[in-house]
């Protein structure tokens, strides 16, 4: 079946399998591999995107459900080649090790700062509670969000 999805502001069309997830459509059909596929069961958050401005796991959205809707992926965060403040802060604080979880964290953190410009530690922890990282032990990720807030 055919779907038409506005991804990062651009209308994109794709032929998809009826049972396929938005994550698969983004990665395999629209050449947007930034959103990562790790668990496919909503546990890790590495596939996080915004669907109509709401943070969701793209592995749990049916591609057909995104038809006619707006999706924002990690690829759309940088503006004309300059990194989003959250991306910058992740690089600066060493919040990236293997980097597999990073796109999901960055999308979730940017979503938080868009809604809550000056979040408390608890609010940051809560907002990132759907994202898992095997490498960093999270402290540097919290540091990165604080740095992004300062900047």
């Amino acid at each position: 079946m055919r779907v038409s999805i506005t991804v990062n502001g651009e209308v994109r069309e794709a032929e998809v399998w009826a049972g396929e997830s938005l994550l698969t459509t983004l990665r395999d059909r629209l050449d947007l591999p930034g959103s990562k596929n790790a668990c496919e069961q909503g546990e890790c958050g590495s596939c996080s995107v915004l669907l109509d401005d709401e943070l969701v796991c793209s592995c749990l959205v049916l591609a057909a459900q995104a038809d006619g809707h707006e999706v924002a992926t990690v690829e759309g965060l940088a503006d004309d080649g300059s990194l989003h403040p959250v991306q910058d802060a992740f690089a600066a604080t060493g919040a990236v090790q293997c980097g597999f979880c990073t796109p999901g964290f960055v999308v979730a953190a940017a979503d938080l700062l868009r809604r809550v410009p000056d979040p408390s530690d608890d609010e940051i922890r809560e907002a990132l509670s759907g994202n898992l990282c095997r490498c960093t032990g999270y402290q540097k990720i919290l540091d990165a969000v604080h740095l992004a807030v300062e900047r």
Partner: protein
Amino acid sequence: MDVLTPRSLDEALRLKAEHPGAVSIQGGTDVMIALNFDQARPELLLNLNEVVELRGWSRENGTLRLGAGLTYADAMADVVADELPALAEASRTVGSPQIRNRGTIGGNLGTASPAGDALPPLLVERAVVEVASTRGARRVPLQEFLVGVKRNALDDDELILSVLVEPSRQSQTFMKVGPRNAMVIAVCSLAVVVDRERGELRAAFGSAAPVARLVTAAIDEAESFPEQVAGAASPIDDVRGTAAYRRHALRVLTARALERCLA
């Protein structure tokens, strides 16, 4: 395999009547996992996201109508959170922000898991499920709607429209036992209302019987109520906990919840 996407409730009911085998999908937080892991290959999916009539909540006289498409994030906000505080507390414990933005009350009823976190807070508020097909609509008390482990009273051609609640506005709380704070399937869960107006104690537990279950007592039975609640459970041993632990936890949680609500 194909996806049907109705644009109105009428169209959705008509499609469900024509294709009773079609699997409804709202937030997809249960259905997509079955698809991603090859556990289900339904011929048809019925995508209900575009059916406006299922979204949000409304008030009809004293009754709150929670649309089947009401998300946990919706239930944590504004009027719903004020009027149904135990449901809001339960919603806050569901999955993660990503899951709460997508997962719905209707989906929780559709799955009818004994661990469904929306179920105990709705049971203690004596919620009624509104279901419909092209044959007409009917109202089923939530306790009767839950018929077994992951089984509900829906007929093949029916959809869940809403959950109807008359908020008691009485002191209430929700508690959940699990190994950590985020992303936890309840080892057991409990909602309690101390209803001074009706002189009644109501508790409902999850993950401690084949279905989430309501237990009631007179308000002056507070002392024996924890034992009554634990006694009404028929828990099993599984990977998340033993039957004995669950019964014990229910006793402790009920006493703690009563303390909180009677304070």
